């Protein structure tokens, strides 16, 4: 794929990357789940409706994106929607990486866990729960992973100070 190309917006990506396996998979399954899309720096980002993330993960896994590489969050405080989840999936067959992006509303958001699709997302979801305070429904062991159990607050949120007292 040509890295120099850039497509911003759902329409542009659907038109410019109609042959992309991830784009085809999501259109073949449920086009409504795709809220937005972009192709920048040679990386495809698909923005998924929050309630569809686990089903999308299943679809992507079946479409050849067999390896869950990474998941983390971004806090866009004070903007709304405040939290963004970024899932990075790698395809061993296509030798390519895609990003699924989920935007979450509210101060205390919750989203469906994808541990049933990739058991390896367990620690990543715990980490995001610990450091951002985003809950994952259906997670088998959702507890803090880095910080002590009795810690107050979620340090990677933008309203949490870098130094000094909380």
């Amino acid at each position, binding site marked *: 794929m040509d890295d120099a190309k850039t497509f911003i917006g759902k329409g542009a990506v659907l038109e410019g990357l109609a042959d992309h396996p991830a784009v085809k998979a999501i259109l073949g399954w449920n086009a409504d789940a795709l809220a937005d899309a972009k192709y*920048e720096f040679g990386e495809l980002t698909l923005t998924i409706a929050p309630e569809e993330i686990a089903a999308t993960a299943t679809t992507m896994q079946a479409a050849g994106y067999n390896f869950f590489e990474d998941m983390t969050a971004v806090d866009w405080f004070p903007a709304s929607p405040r939290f963004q989840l*970024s899932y990075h999936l790698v395809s061993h067959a296509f030798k*390519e990486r895609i990003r699924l992006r989920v935007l979450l509303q509210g101060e205390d958001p919750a989203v469906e866990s994808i541990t049933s699709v990739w058991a390896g997302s367990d620690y990543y979801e715990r980490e995001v729960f610990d450091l951002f305070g985003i809950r994952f429904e259906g997670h088998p062991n959702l507890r803090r992973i*880095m*910080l002590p159990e009795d810690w107050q607050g979620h340090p*990677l949120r933008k309203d*949490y100070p870098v130094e000094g007292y909380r």
Partner: protein
Amino acid sequence: MSNPAGMPVLEPAEGAKDQHMVINMGPQHPATHGVLRLVVEIDGEIVVRVYPEIGYLHTGIEKTCEAKFYHQVVPLTDRINYLDPLANNLCYALAVEKLLTLEIPPKAQWMRVLLAELSRLNSHLIWLGTHAMDIGALTVFLYTFREREDILRLFEAVAGQRMMTSYIRIGGLAMEPPLDFLARVQGFIRTLPEKIDEYSNLLTGNPIFRNRLKGVGHLSAADAIALGVTGPPLRASGVDFDLRRDMPYSSYEKFQFKVPVSNDADCWARYEVRLIEMRESIKIIQQALDGMPEGPVKADAPKVVLPDREKMKTQMEALIHHFKIVTEGFTVPAGEVFQGIECGHGQMGYYIVSDGTAKPYRVHMRYPSFPILQALEKMCKGRMLADVVAVIGSIDIVLGEIDR
């Protein structure tokens, strides 16, 4: 279930309270390679459950990155996986360069490959020494650390630092390597294959080492993929995937090397895969030495790359750029990138979100040792307690990159 100290208590499984015992391993156990705490449930000497407890080394490095300029993050990255320092630098630099769409001169790219491979050798030598020491073969440790010392001297020659090199910077390298550097690397890799034979002579035929590793810590390819296992343990489980070959970066596509794969999926397979990887690294370094291009080691981007000291003292422009970069940093266009590389332990990745200012909005590091702990229970279940030590050695973890 939490207790006042904030530590999870693992009770024996229901119905086996009289027979099972829960023991604590770490965080100060020498075989856990750092501050890893394992809560292990055993039935006699058979492992029933393993619960890794991490976070003892958590320093909030991702939060710290958000408060620094882009170029100030480079020294932080060294400290995450301190056994493979240049791979950290490389991954971060590549990610930021992707956002900046910087063109890196060929010599810098080839030097980066050379240094990343030296760094991989460094990481593998420490793995081999400590793994063998855990099993009880103490001698190998002394030999591998002898060779590691040579690598650290090479790092010192280029960066002035043995471990926290920070030599790979955004836009290239910190400075030209010393004139005799390539000759020194050549001298080092000329003798290394013999040294690897020496380790192999000590271990491969050693019946104790063999019996402790063969058939121990089995991890199927499907489990390895499901649990996020990468690097040598993934390839030892029969999955032929290496980012250097399959999603090349920093001109790795111009190098010829084999990616060792084994289908045995046990600790022994991981040992063999890494040993071959070390030999392949030597070949890559040789190719880098033979074809080292001429030219600058920094990109032509005066607003991003610090000028040479010489220029700074003679040219007004260079002095102004230096002052600007050091005091205000440089802005990076808004956007998000993920850059993955293959480091000694597996797939490393930096996810950087920029909001268009001089400080990264969010830096997230994906490190291979973190997800692999999830596979620990799978590998140890139903085996003897002593095998836990062999398995931890074989997956090659560094707690700095787990806790970050």
